[in-house]
């Protein structure tokens, strides 16, 4: 496979402008002759579908949910970044670009990141115009707060529900296009394969989750906006249905998978409390604005946190990283918490937690201010833990949250299958090895509102399309394969539920491919996963049939793909003999326990190519060039 990133020439500030001018256009009257399939309705998918519909294309939008508004973007809490410099604290496009490249530990494409920083301001304008009720100050202007990895306040927010409000904004834009008939929405459809004809992505095969029918859909281009694969770890902050099936099936049809081992562990989640637990709950990073993180100075201190005097508390982030303090990037904060717990300073019944304390902030600002800023998060914590965080510090621990890896795309967001685009978390593009807080919403909406609508036109204008219908042999063949696959799964009739397999896989992943990784552990995971997969295909139990609403079958299909993806993830982690961002190889750390990169050997994107069942995937490398931000050992001290 030959990877061409198609990064435009010229100085970085001019690349996107020049590129937009050079892109071929589809004449307004011709746009209605094209049909674009958009899978997923989160921030990236909904904004893309709405914007493409507005331009005049016919859009078919798909979701496995009942409504576009259920997509998991809805759960993002803290905010969205944009270098508006409304806070007058020295922010600029360049600074956001710099922070993001550095935050990603120098493993992202400079040109993509710069473009992201450039268009991010327009996102805020767009959302305001749609009626997104961002937080305001008393003069009526937009308010900002700080987030990890930055020393400026550039994060726009709507209480602790920013993702919800941005998604409802994009959903409303989508509704408008549904109203005028440019977007047709298909609810409860799960994409199970992509159809490639003459080397071009020309459609998808979906399972109708209500009737079980295997349905073909034809288009001129396919956009995957299907989110990340964090649920490969079973326990994560992702929604229960979040899955990798769409991108995994695309991978098996020829789309390269970029940097699967770059997974983000979020530092502030509610710790696991029991074996029955089905998911972990995130507490927004914005809490680190006012909350102080600490552990007792004495190992195994069992006193209540309020009984431990100031002098016996170790505010370790403030101690180790005085410049950034509690606002260090996520990977740094997570690893520090893990180290503290590994060393025996952890708190709570399991010893796997640290305190996030608002005592000082409440004293300084008053309970009202804290309630206004974080009220819904405090309520959520209270609801889950039955403890009142206004009185006693929260207990938090890191959890899997986001995946920087995803399908490889070029500067136009096109995958290695011509005509198949990948946007949002599903692609690998902008965050390198670690994503900064409040940047996922930014990237999803940048891709959907302001990048894809331009770049996809160039492909449509410059490609030849043969007339294709669902009766075409390739469609029929893929449809048959998918139907066969689904039936095979239902007919195994073993003894174990998909849920149990998923938990087992999650344990293998978390123990060996989690926050700290080493050669022996990764090899163990690579030995265990294929065995579990084999057991899955001989001992899975699904009650019910494939021709009805069958949620166990849906779950099993997703677990089957995680059982393959998990292996690629471990394989990539084993090959990357360095530590960078969220990928921490214990063999490669500085004396202080920070991630130690190896730029000479690993300054590239690992784009894996599917080579067939039970064959080792093929490694393709896209070398990264840093012309503007010089890679150095990241320091937040």
């Amino acid at each position: 496979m030959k990877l061409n990133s198609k990064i435009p020439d010229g100085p970085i500030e001019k690349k996107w402008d020049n590129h937009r001018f050079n892109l071929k256009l589809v004449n307004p009257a011709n746009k209605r002759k094209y049909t674009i399939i958009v899978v997923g309705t989160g921030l990236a998918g909904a904004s893309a579908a709405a914007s493409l519909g507005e331009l005049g294309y016919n859009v078919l939008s798909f979701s496995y949910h009942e409504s576009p508004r259920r997509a998991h973007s809805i759960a993002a809490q803290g905010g969205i970044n944009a270098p508006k410099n409304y806070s007058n604290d020295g922010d600029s496009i360049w600074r956001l670009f710099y922070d993001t490249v550095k935050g990603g530990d120098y493993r992202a494409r400079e040109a993509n990141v710069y473009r992201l920083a450039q268009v991010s301001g327009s996102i805020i304008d767009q959302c305001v115009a749609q009626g997104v009720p961002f937080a305001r100050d008393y003069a009526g202007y937009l308010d900002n707060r700080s987030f990890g990895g930055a020393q400026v306040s550039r994060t726009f927010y709507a209480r602790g529900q920013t993702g919800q409000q941005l998604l409802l904004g994009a959903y409303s834009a989508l509704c408008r296009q549904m109203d005028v008939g440019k977007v047709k929405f298909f609810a409860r459809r799960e994409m199970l394969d992509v159809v490639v004809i003459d080397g071009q992505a020309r459609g998808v095969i979906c399972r109708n989750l209500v009737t079980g029918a295997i349905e073909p859909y034809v288009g001129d281009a396919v956009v995957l906006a299907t989110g990340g694969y964090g649920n490969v770890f079973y326990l994560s902050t992702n929604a229960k249905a979040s899955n990798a099936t769409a991108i995994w099936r695309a991978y098996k049809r020829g789309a390269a998978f970029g940097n699967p081992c770059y997974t983000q562990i979020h530092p502030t989640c509610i710790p696991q409390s029991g074996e029955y637990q089905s998911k972990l709950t995130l507490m927004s990073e914005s809490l680190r604005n006012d909350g102080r993180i600490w552990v007792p100075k004495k190992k195994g201190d069992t006193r209540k946190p309020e009984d431990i005097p100031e002098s016996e508390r170790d505010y370790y982030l403030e101690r180790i990283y005085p410049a950034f303090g509690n606002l260090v990037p996520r990977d740094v904060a997570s690893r520090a918490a893990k180290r503290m717990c590994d060393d025996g300073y952890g708190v709570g019944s399991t010893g796997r937690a640290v305190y996030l304390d608002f005592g000082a902030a409440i004293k300084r600002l008053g309970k009202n201010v804290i309630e206004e800023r974080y009220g819904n998060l405090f309520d959520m914590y209270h609801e889950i833990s039955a403890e009142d965080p206004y009185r006693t510090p929260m207990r938090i621990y890191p959890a899997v949250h986001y995946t920087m890896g995803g399908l490889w795309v070029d500067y136009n967001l096109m995958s290695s299958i011509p005509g198949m685009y990948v946007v949002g978390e599903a692609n690998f593009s902008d965050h390198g090895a670690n994503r900064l807080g409040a940047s996922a919403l930014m990237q999803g909406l940048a891709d959907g509102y302001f990048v894809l609508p331009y770049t996809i036109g160039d492909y449509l204008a410059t490609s030849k399309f043969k007339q294709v219908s669902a009766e075409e042999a390739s469609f029929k063949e893929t449809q048959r394969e998918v139907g066969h696959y689904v039936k095979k799964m239902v007919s195994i009739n073993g003894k174990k539920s998909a849920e149990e397999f998923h938990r087992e896989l999650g344990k293998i992943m978390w123990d060996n491919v989690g926050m700290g990784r080493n050669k022996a552990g990764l090899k163990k995971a690579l030995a265990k996963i294929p065995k579990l997969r084999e057991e899955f295909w001989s001992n899975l139990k699904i009650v019910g049939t494939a021709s009805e609403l069958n949620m166990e079958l849906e779950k099993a299909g997703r677990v089957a793909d995680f059982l393959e993806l998990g292996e690629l993830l471990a394989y990539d982690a084993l090959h990357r003999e360095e530590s960078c961002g969220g990928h921490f190889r214990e063999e490669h750390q500085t004396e202080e326990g920070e991630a130690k990169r190896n730029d000479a050997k690993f300054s590239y994107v690992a784009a894996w190519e599917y080579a067939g069942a039970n064959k080792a995937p093929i490694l393709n490398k896209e070398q990264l060039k840093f012309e503007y931000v010089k890679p150095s050992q990241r320091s937040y001290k």
Partner: protein
Amino acid sequence: MNFKLKIWRQKNSTDKGRFVEYLVKNISPDASFLEMLDVLNVELTRRGEEPVAFDHDCREGICGSCGIMINGRAHGPGHGAATCELRMRAFQDNETIVAEPWRAKPFPVLRDLVVDRSSFDRIMVAGGYISAKTGGVPDGNAIPISKPIADQAMDAAACIGCGACVAACPNSSAMLFVAAKVSHLALLPQGQPERKSRVERMVAQMDAEGFGNCSNNYACEAECPKEISVSNIARMNTEYILAKIR
């Protein structure tokens, strides 16, 4: 903790449906209601019985997917929380718990506890938006909005579209859901140009879907997981009258 469950089982939208009793044992009081159903479902699968279908996703009270009528209350006992946020410590040990789907004509049951709420989408499609084209908009700070107004709009916009208001209402009215969107957009300066047509169209669609009217029962507000105020319904009524007489 142990519980006796009476769960509504219905194979599909044409099946008549019935309650079936199950026993669940050794449930942690910290487990959520949905995690308790997970335990039941793994057990049912092992026994070769069909697991209970229920909608759920984020499990932190924001996606609006889950919605179960528990002991006759939308989202169960307690206030300001969705079903997924409900913990088993809210129940007594050995209590009998009745779980049913939302009951309303515009929410047909698809299976067990899963209903079809696409009528909500159709109401939103009928004007529940501001027609701001991508790109053609002014700077965010060019539209100052006073903090109290922005806060009120946010209170209304917090609706998660779960349908508890409809399920709780004796008339199966969707007024709180529709009013939340009408209020959110009518309060903001950006929402002014389409203010009249929006309320007219959304209300017309709401009626066409077969939702009932409001008779000031206030059950919707009491059961709303986001505690959206019924004052939004009053605002919508005013908006509607003004749209009709002007």
